[in-house]
């Protein structure tokens, strides 16, 4: 049972930690780093609630070891909004489209959408909806999420177009 020193950038801040080899990135983020917005549903990669971005890509934090994130830039849902609380566009889109009900799956959905629409990435509505196959919403609130995806793809977030039909 080896222990390992890791250095990573978490939500823009450098962090160092010592982790047991078997500690998942999800458990490290929740229990050590306090990022409890990382939700753990199934712990075997099916539900998508634990999705975070690692070096800009959406990944399952339950299917990655904390030690594997050594040297990487990790962003959780806590890192999306601006320091003053201004929503990230994906958060704004989900809010306008009523894209959440109980909210358990929401952090994962947000991170997938953020990875696919941030910076240079300009995913189409189809690509966003296809990536949603990697998330399970047990409230079955998919239509709201779908509207948020459309608003993100069409660039109409904040224009009121994403509101409930």
């Amino acid at each position, binding site marked *: 049972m*080896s222990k390992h020193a890791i250095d990573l950038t978490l939500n823009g801040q450098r962090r160092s930690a010592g982790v047991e*080899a078997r500690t998942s990135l999800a458990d490290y983020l929740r229990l050590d780093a306090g990022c409890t917005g990382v939700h753990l549903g199934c712990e075997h990669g099916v539900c998508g609630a634990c999705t975070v971005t690692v070096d800009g890509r959406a990944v399952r934090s339950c299917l990655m070891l904390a030690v594997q994130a050594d040297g990487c830039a990790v962003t959780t849902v806590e890192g999306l909004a601006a320091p003053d609380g201004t929503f990230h566009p994906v958060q704004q889109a989900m809010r306008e489209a009523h894209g959440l009900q109980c909210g358990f799956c929401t952090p994962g959905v947000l991170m*997938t959408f953020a990875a696919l629409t941030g910076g240079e990435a300009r995913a189409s509505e189809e690509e966003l909806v296809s990536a949603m196959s990697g998330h399970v919403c047990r409230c079955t609130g998919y239509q709201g999420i779908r509207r948020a995806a459309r608003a993100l793809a069409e660039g109409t977030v904040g224009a009121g177009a994403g509101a409930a039909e």
Partner: protein
Amino acid sequence: MKPAPFDYERPASIAEACRILSEAGGGATVLAGGQTLMPLLNLRMSQPFILVDIGRIAALQGVSRGGDGTRIGAMTRQADALADPLLAAHLPALVTALGHVGHHQTRNRGTVGGSVALGEPAAEMPAAAVALGAMLELTSVRGTRKVPADGFYIGPYMTALEPDELLTAVTYPDWPEGHLVLFREVARRPGDFALVGMVGAAVVEEGIVTRAGLAWFGMGPTPIRMRQLEAALVGAALAGLDAHALAALGVADSAPFDDHHASAEYRRTVGRRILARSLREAFALKETA
């Protein structure tokens, strides 16, 4: 659940990885993308003493072209392979199959080599390797050997890979430009393992099928090559092809079983239908029966 304790090693080179595997005497498991292995660890279905993370070995990354075809380094992520221009140009069947492997989020971590090496019988990558005639490069401290994908798979998650060996690359032979792609799978939800699936390629020259490679996934304990169908296709004129009869021939080379997802009979029925449809579509055949 959480994994049982293990030691973790992150070798920087293939040689170092092979040395660790050799010294571990079978107690080590290779961690590539982890998208199948991590669930097995979390569920404690796998409890290795040592996990050997090959994720930082640069020599295992990337796609290249050579005299024997297109070579994919074992650690090449599925998402990168899916977007690779060389693969799009030379191996469209593989790219089509890749689009059905897991989800966007798991393809960002999962690797081509990891999926090929694990040998999940319902997975797309092992069947694509068998159908397209891929050669697997297996490296250990004893040297490197090349093994055809067809023959590598022994049973569910059982392969010809020795405990001290590392799959370092998969090389797919060239299929001529404009070859036909056959792919169909049936799964309950996108990203699930297929209940039944088939993948392959074929070449038609002047109305005659000159080459065909097809394999099933989810239709037995391993990916299964459709030998009888391939033999019937090669040399046959398109005008004389009967998709219905050919599909029955394809199913004759399957060995599906009953499980809690579907019965063997269901798999045979669905397999026959998707194969017939795929043949009709690829060869532009008319509906017969």
